[in-house]
C-alpha cells in the first residue's frame, strides 16, 4: 500500500558520534503521508540526537534524511519542529499572535492572509481567543498549543515533536494527545513524535519505532492496528492495545540500555 509511494520523511542508515562515543548506529525508518509515527526509547538513547538530525538542526556522520525523496542538509520548509521546552521556545516579548506570525514573515503573504493563517492556526489548536495574550499569561498546556499552532501556521507536511508533553500534567497531556490525533485527521499532516512513554507511543502511533542499545539502533518497528480513531478510555482498555504495550515494554526491558537509562 504505502510501499509504492515515496515516504514524506525517511531516515536512511543514520549514524552519529560525539567524539569517541557513538550515539546512533544505522538508524533507518520512514513515515508516509498522514502517518503518525512514534519513536520510543528509554532516556539517554539518543532520541534527541535523532530528532535534531531529522530536522537538520544537527548533522549525522553518515546516512541521510530525505524529505519527499530529496536528501536535506538544512531545515526544510516541509518540516516543522515542536520542542519539549515550550517555555523557552516562545518569545516572551511577543503576544501569541505575533509569535505564530513570526515564521510567516519570510513568505510573501498579504497582511490579511497572514492574519487569517494565524487565526486558523489558533482555531486548529482550540485557542481562538488567545491571540492577544502573552505566553507567560498562559498555562504550560496552552503554551504548548501555541507552539503547535506556530508550527501549523506555515503548513508543513511533517511535524516533528520532541517529548512535547513531558512537562504538563496528566489531564493536559491526554488533551494534547487527542489534539494531535485530531490535527492529523483534519489536516493530514505527518507526525513524528519522540517519547519515552510506551503508553503514549502505542496510543498515538500508527507505527512505533523502538530504539534501544548503545549506540542506539532500531530494534523493532511495530505496526499498531488500532484504527485511526482512538479514545483515551476505550482504546486503552482494548486487549490488543494492552498486548502491544506489553510487547514493546518487554523489548525495551530486554535491551541493555535500560539498565543505566
Amino acid at each position, binding site marked *: 500500500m504505502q510501499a509504492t509511494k515515496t515516504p514524506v520523511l525517511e531516515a536512511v542508515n543514520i549514524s552519529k558520534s560525539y567524539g569517541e562515543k557513538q550515539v546512533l548506529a544505522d538508524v533507518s525508518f520512514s513515515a508516509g503521508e498522514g502517518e503518525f509515527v512514534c519513536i520510543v526509547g528509554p532516556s539517554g538513547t539518543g532520541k534527541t540526537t535523532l530528532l535534531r538530525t531529522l530536522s537538520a538542526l544537527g548533522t549525522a556522520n553518515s546516512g541521510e534524511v530525505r524529505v519527499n525523496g530529496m536528501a536535506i542538509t538544512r531545515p526544510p520548509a516541509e518540516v516543522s519542529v515542536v520542542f519539549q521546552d515550550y517555555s523557552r521556545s516562545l*518569545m*516572551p516579548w*511577543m503576544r501569541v499572535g505575533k509569535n505564530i506570525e*513570526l515564521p510567516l514573515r519570510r513568505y510573501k503573504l498579504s497582511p490579511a492572509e497572514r492574519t487569517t493563517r494565524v487565526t486558523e492556526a489558533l482555531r486548529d489548536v482550540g485557542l481562538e481567543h488567545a491571540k492577544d495574550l502573552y505566553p*507567560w499569561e498562559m498555562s504550560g498546556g496552552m503554551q504548548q498549543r501555541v507552539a503547535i499552532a506556530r508550527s501549523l501556521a506555515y503548513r508543513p507536511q511533517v511535524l516533528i515533536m520532541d517529548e512535547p508533553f513531558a512537562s504538563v500534567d496528566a489531564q493536559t497531556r491526554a488533551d494534547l494527545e487527542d489534539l494531535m490525533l485530531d490535527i492529523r485527521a483534519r489536516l493530514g499532516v505527518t507526525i513524528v513524535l519522540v517519547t519515552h512513554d510506551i503508553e503514549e507511543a502505542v496510543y498515538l502511533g500508527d507505527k512505533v519505532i523502538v530504539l534501544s542499545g548503545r549506540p542506539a539502533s532500531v530494534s523493532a518497528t511495530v505496526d499498531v492496528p488500532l484504527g485511526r480513531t482512538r479514545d483515551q478510555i476505550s482504546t486503552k482498555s482494548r486487549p490488543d492495545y494492552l498486548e502491544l504495550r506489553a510487547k514493546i515494554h518487554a523489548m525495551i526491558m530486554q535491551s541493555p540500555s535500560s539498565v543505566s537509562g
Partner: protein
Amino acid sequence: MSSPFARLIVPALLPIVLILAWWYTSEGGSSIFFPPLSQIQERFQELWLFALVPEHVVPSLQSILWGLWISIVLGVGLGVLLGLNGYVATAVNPVLQFLRYLPAVALLPLAIQLIGIGQEMRVTIIVLGALWPILLNTIDGVRGISPGLIDVARSNRLRNFDWIFRVVIPSASPQIFAGIRASLAVSVILMFASELLGASRGIGYFILEAQRQFSLPEMWSGMILLGIIGYALNVVLMAIEYFALAWHRKARI
C-alpha cells in the same frame, strides 16, 4: 511598602529632610563658599527658569542626547555583530576591556587638538566613553541567548532581519538597558568635563565661569541644575525601560 502612597512618600522623606537641614544651617552663615540656600534658590529661579536655558542647558542636553544616541546605535549594532560571532568577540575582548577602562576624559586633549572645541568634539568624547558599557552588555546579552531560541529560529527558517530585530535584540534587551543606564551616567560626566575644557556655552562652562568670577551662588545653582538634569534623564530612561521590559518583569514572576 506596596501602597502607592508609601512608594512615593517614603523615598521623598530623606531629600526633604536634607533640604530643610541645608536651608536652616546655611541661613545667615558667613562662609562665602557656602552661601545660604535661599540665595542659591533665588539665583536658580532667575537663571534657570528659564532665562539661560537656551544658552546653556540646550547645548548640554544636545551633547548628552546625541552622544547617548550614537552610542546606542553603534553599541547595539557592533554588539550584535560581535555577539553572534563568538570567536571574534573573544578575540576583540581584551581590546574592548582596555578601551573601556581608558578614561575617555584622557582623550580630551587629543580630541580638542583634532576636532577643535565644537559640539562635535563634545559628542565624540561622550561616545568614546558611553559606547563601552552598551557594547559590552549587548555582546553579553546576545551571547546569552537561549539555545532553545536558536533552534526555534533555525527550524522555522526565520529571515536574518526577523532573527536579529525580533529575537536577538529583544532577548538581549534587559542587558542592553542596563548598559544604557551605565552609559547615561558616563555621558553626564563627560558632558561636564568636555565643557570645562572646550566650550563657550553649556552648564559645565557656566559653572566654571561663575567660579572664576567668584559668583558662588550662581556656581551652586549650576551644580544643583546638573544634579537635577542627571536625575531627570535617569527617570526618563527608567520609565522607557519599565514599559519596554514589561514582559521581562512579568515573565519571571
